[in-house]
Every structure is written in C-alpha cells, then in structure tokens.
C-alpha cells in the first residue's frame, strides 16, 4: 500500500536522523492529520525491526528508554572503531558499577547514603559517572546540609538497554541463599542478541514505586533467627 510505504519511509528516516530513542508519540504527532493511528506506527516499527534483522542489515532496531533506537550490529564494532578512529573503549570500573547500582535502585539517593552502603568513599567515582552522563543531580535532600540527590539518566537506560527503570531486576531475586552466584535477572543483552532480547515486557514491571528503601533491605526478623 502506498500510504504505508510512505509512512514506513518516514519512520525509517526519523529513526536514522535522530540521536537517541524516538518515541511512538513523536512520530504520531508529526504524522497528525494523515489519519494514522498509534497502532499503525507500532506495527510498522515491529515490521522494520523484523525486516532489518532478516535482511542482515548493518543496523538493528531496539526498544530502549521508552522509545525506538537504531544500533549497529555488535559484530561490526571492531571495524567501526577502526573507521571512526576510536582505539580503546573505557569500561566502567568495578567501583563505578557499584555506585551506579546503588543509584539505580535507591534513587534519588545522596552521596553519604551511597558511601554508607559501600562503606567506602565514592565521591570521585560519582564524579566520573556524572561526567559520563550516567547519573545526574536531581535536586537536594531536605536534611541538614542539603546534600545533592542523584538519579540515573536516560543515557543510563540507553546504555544498558533498558526500557525503563521498572525493568531493573528485583534485588531480592539477585542473590539467593545459600548459592551465592546465581543472578537470575537476565537483564539487558542475553548472549546472542544484544539488541533484540530486551523485550521482557513487564516481568518485574508494574509494581508501584521504584524500590522503596525497605525493599532492598533485609528485615530484622530474618536475621534474628540466625542467632
């Protein structure tokens, strides 16, 4: 159908010319008075995703941070790094990942709170995360000293391939006594397919409020059995 083909072109062009994820709503807004419905847009996006994958295109379509984003195939990374002259990539340090984890689960959170959980000073690490745009300052806490509150950014979601914060695995599920190393939140890219596999819609999803404090903490009753 010509209308569909045109709309498909529009959506593909919008995706390729926009840095960051494109929301379905923004496409809908731009296509107003063309009689297009939200469901049409979604189905075209799904079609595009399938098509690009089947045709072995250099780019894939993924759903992150509440929108759709283009990303090159992982196997092309080596070439692209050469091509763009990027020698090495900065991996996040263990400390940075820890601080990021705490911010992700307890946001908004202050630096003293992060320091407490890690029992270690995290201010320089926090600065690195701010510089990399993975966390942001989100106001100040109304306590003495008014410390800054930190939250994760949209780039955090994009970088880790999350649609929203609700997709974070349940911290209680992450560790199970007695076997220590069995993380079963299969967050982000599972082995084969870093881009497509992100679709576990709302397994952990829709419970209210993102992780209040008591949820991440062990209730005292549990400990008392132990003694």
């Amino acid at each position, binding site marked *: 159908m010509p209308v569909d083909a045109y709309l498909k072109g529009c959506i593909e062009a919008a995706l390729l010319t926009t840095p960051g994820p494109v929301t379905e709503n923004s496409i809908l807004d731009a296509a107003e008075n063309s009689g297009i419905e939200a469901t049409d847009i979604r189905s075209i996006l799904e079609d595009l995703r399938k098509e690009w994958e089947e045709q072995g295109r250099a780019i894939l379509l993924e759903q992150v941070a509440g929108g759709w984003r283009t*990303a090159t195939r992982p196997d*092309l990374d080596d070439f692209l790094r050469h091509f763009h002259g990027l020698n090495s990539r900065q991996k996040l340090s263990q400390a940075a990942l820890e601080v990021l984890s705490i911010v992700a689960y307890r946001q908004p959170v202050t630096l003293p709170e992060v320091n407490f959980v*890690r*029992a*270690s000073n995290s201010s320089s690490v926090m600065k690195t995360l701010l510089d990399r745009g993975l966390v942001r300052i989100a106001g100040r806490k109304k306590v003495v000293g008014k410390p800054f509150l930190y939250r994760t950014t949209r780039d955090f979601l994009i970088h880790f391939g999350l649609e929203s914060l609700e997709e*974070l695995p349940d911290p209680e599920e992450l560790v199970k006594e007695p076997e220590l190393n069995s993380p079963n939140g299969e967050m982000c890219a599972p082995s084969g397919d870093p881009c497509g596999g992100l679709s576990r819609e709302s397994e952990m999803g829709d419970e209210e409020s993102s992780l209040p404090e008591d949820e991440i903490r062990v209730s005292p009753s549990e400990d008392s059995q132990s003694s």
Partner: protein
Amino acid sequence: MTEKTSSRLNSPTTVLPAMPPVEIPEFKGPLDLLLHLIQKNEFSIYDIPIAIICRQYHEYLEKLDLLDLDTAGEFLWMASWLLHMKSRMLLPRENPEDGGADPREELVERLLEYRRVKEFASLLHEADLLRSCLWEARIARNIGSEQLEVDWEDVDLRLLAETYVETMDRFAASHPPPLKIRPMRFSVAGKMRELYDRVHREGSMSLLRHLDSRPDPEEVVTLFVATLELIRLGGVLAEQRRQFAEIYLRPGPKVVDLQNMTAPEYENAG
C-alpha cells in the same frame, strides 16, 4: 583512575607465613573484603563466627599496603567494628527478655545489601561490555539546523553550572582585566647602589644566579636595568665566557658616585 583504592590494594606485598598462599584480589572496600573472607571460609552470612573473621580480617589488613589514608581509614573502621562485636559476643547476654539482640545483626544487614549491589554491578558489567559495541545511526538531517541542542529533561544543575562557568570564562577571555599600574616597588637607583656596593665589596658576583634567586619578576627587571646602567657608566664590567654561560660582574674602571645621584633620572626610565 576513578578507583584510587584499587591500585593501592594491588601493590605487591609479602606473604606472611601464617597466611595460606592466596592472591589478593582487588577489594573495593571493607565490606568487599569481609564478604570475600566469608565466602572463602564458606560461612553462613547469617551466622558469622566473628572471632575467626576478625582475626582473618586483621591478617589481610596487614598484608594490604594501605598508603592512602582515606582508604586505610575505611578498612580500619571496619576492623574496630569487628573487634567491638567480638568483645560483645564474649559477654553473656545480660537481658534475655529484650530478645538478646545479636550484635552481628547490623553487619549482616549491611553485608546482604552490599552483596546485592555487587551482584547487580556484575550484571551491569556484562551489559556494559555487550552494549558498548553498539553504534547509533547518525546521518545528517537535510532540513533544519544541526545546531547543538540538549533535551530539557537532561539539563541538571551540573550542566547549568558548567554552561555558566564556560560562558563567564569566555567573557573573561575577551575582557582581560584592566591594566593596573602600581607604584614601582623597586627603584633602579637603589638596585644600582646595591649591585655596585656588592661587586666592589666582593670583587665579583654571578649575575644570572642572582637574578634566578629573585622570586619577583619586577625585581628581576629592575636589577637587570640597574646592571645595564652600571655598565654604561663604567662602574662595573660584565664578563661571559661562553654563550648562555654565567655572567660575572667585576668592578669597573670608573668610580660612580651613586649616593648623589638624583633619583628621578632613573625612576622614570623604567
């Protein structure tokens, strides 16, 4: 570079004979080390034998070469907490009615939480590796300006502050502060007297070394002008044996009466 502790903790250490031969992994803090000890011993996190852990913790602490005071403080704080717990465990529970709160309770809580953090961090690590190799398409728009724009949503206090600082820096760069002419703190006449007296008293002096020893650039300039004046008047001679070598000042052929020299003649020359 973000993690100053890691490099400290990795510095080579001698293995004490009492210790089993283990390599020292990177510990991100006292809780990390404690968790490591508990896992290594296969202790239950809910029933930590504090006395054993306390001893092992101290043994490790001795092996770690903690040069960084802050980091050392973090590890030592934990050590003292463990000791405190150990002593409380030795005491009989005074009051069984109050539930006999286990002194280890808070530690367990904190260890459990920290372990969750570590588990989540390892998930993030895998995702970081996998997803760093994805590139976003970035073809030019034919239309509209490619002007730099930020999502309002992404503007936080730090970006606002950064923008302000950059703007003001740019302003400052294009508006250098007004030139301030201060009264001269050193007079050429004074320096001429000083040099002349010294050269005649000591028979010789090293000019460059003397100039180097003066921290104030204004004084250096004044001294240099004074030297040139003295040479012109024949009060001193300058001698340099090689290019860029030291310049020696010696008494000149003429006697210069500097005491009666009128100051303004020199003060305005500068």
